[in-house]
């Protein structure tokens, strides 16, 4: 099955926890009417290709929207509801 693609914005990439569960706001990049729909999920993120064999592709962008270099993967563990906690 083709991998899905998601997008997340992370201002400081060095602060993104890797290889452990993290609550993260992602946007669906699957082409369709709901492209860029937001989802609040618990997931594991890795920057090592193939480390999450059943994971999907994650595109990461920084503060001003430029892509963070590297190859990122995400494995969604569960949906956390519609919104992140109140900011």
């Amino acid at each position, binding site marked *: 099955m083709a991998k899905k693609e998601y997008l997340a914005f992370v*201002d400081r990439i060095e602060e993104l926890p890797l290889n452990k569960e993290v609550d993260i706001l992602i946007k669906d990049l699957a082409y369709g009417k*709901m492209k*860029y729909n937001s989802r609040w999920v618990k997931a594991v993120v890795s920057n090592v290709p193939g480390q999450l064999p059943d994971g999907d592709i994650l595109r990461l962008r920084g503060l001003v929207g430029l892509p963070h270099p590297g190859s990122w993967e995400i494995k969604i563990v569960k949906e956390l509801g519609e919104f992140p906690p109140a*900011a």
Partner: protein
Amino acid sequence: MAYKDNREYMEALVKTGDGVRIQKEVDWDLEAATVTGRSCEIGGPACLFEHLKLYPEGGRILGAPMATYRRMAIAMGLPPDTPIGKIFDEYEKRTAKPIKPVQVKDGPCKEKKVFGDDVNLYDFPVPTVHGGDGGRYIGTWHCVITRHPETGWNNWGMYRLMVYNRNTIAGYLRPFSHFGMAFEQYEKKGLPMPVAVAIGPDPICALTASSPFRIGEDEVDFAGALRREPVQLIKAETNDLMVPANAEIILEGEVLPNFQLPEGPFGEFPGYRTQGASPQPVFRVKAITHRVNPIICMSPEGVGISDGKIGPSVGGALGMKERLKRHGVPVVNVFIPPEMGSLVAVVSVKESDPAMAQKVTAVLHGRRVSVPKLIIVNDDIDVFNLAEVAHAIGTRMHPVTGFKAETDHQGWTLVPYLSPEERRNEKVATGVFDCTWPAAWTKESDIPVRMSVKNAYPEDLQKKVLENWKEYGF
């Protein structure tokens, strides 16, 4: 006669070559914005995308509806080639006599209605405006309608709106904005604020929403003045707000109190994407009414001349002129050139005064700064002519005494040159380029004589040359 909607307006734009209907299928995901962005960068026409991928019947996108002064002139019912200064004069004259709206019982914006769980913003071809933005933006040239709970002030504003999910929008709705003043009252009580958003109102309604009118003034009255006939309003379905009856889409709902979602990043009107995503107020959409095959307006903010730079420039400049006059400054004209990212105002004054630059700066930068750089010129310079303004900077501004910089003003943090620290602290650095001749200089001996055709030759010779221009072989 005013254009009742964007459909009539678009027909007029096509006739004059200021609009183009695009029949080729285009992707709402960046392609429509790329086409429109290029059109803005080359001074091209407004773009009506009539066939959008995935949305064969679900709507259209009108890119850059008012991204030139020609289009503004057309929207105001003036000849397309009306000089910018004349557009300013007409705008000033018309807005001096506001016209109240009229209420109607039915209107095109009620052709289709969806409520509650059936609301789905993804039913419309909401564009992605720039690669790397935080999402799809349904509001880049539109009208956010709110009412102050205590004063009854009906505010129309333009604040960018990003789709979060099928019925939720996060908006760049700043606390110091007119929206924020009403929302603060609701938030203090922990109550949601009723809101409506008109997507694709008629061109003058959108122009008015983008323009900075005073606190307590109903923008719809000025829209009536600019249209020279009242705006038709109709009651929203789920709250008491009044919305433009001829708008393409009306979103109705509530702004949630004490709750924010990440909004952005977004490439803004100065031509840069400067800030990251930030927590912003959340608009929960409870109902949508719309026309059949509705048109979403899109301003592709960027380096090119966009609606976001043209629209507010007139009202913004005239507001500055009015403030200067009120403070006794002998101002002649103010212009905010869109080519300078809307971050520079050129102010022409009648007389030189040793403290003129300080007076102008005190008035325009004394409170919150909206335009951080000022160029002050004598009134022999036409502020609407950028070549003349650039010549004045090069020839009249003394590099030691003519420039003044200040820091720590309150103001927009979308200014690209600000340091990350200044942006975080919402502090704006400003600059003033004083291109007026020193007051102590006399015309007879000190002020250099300008060698323009208008200044350097006898009037009768100028007249003769103009009359014989073709005979010279031009």
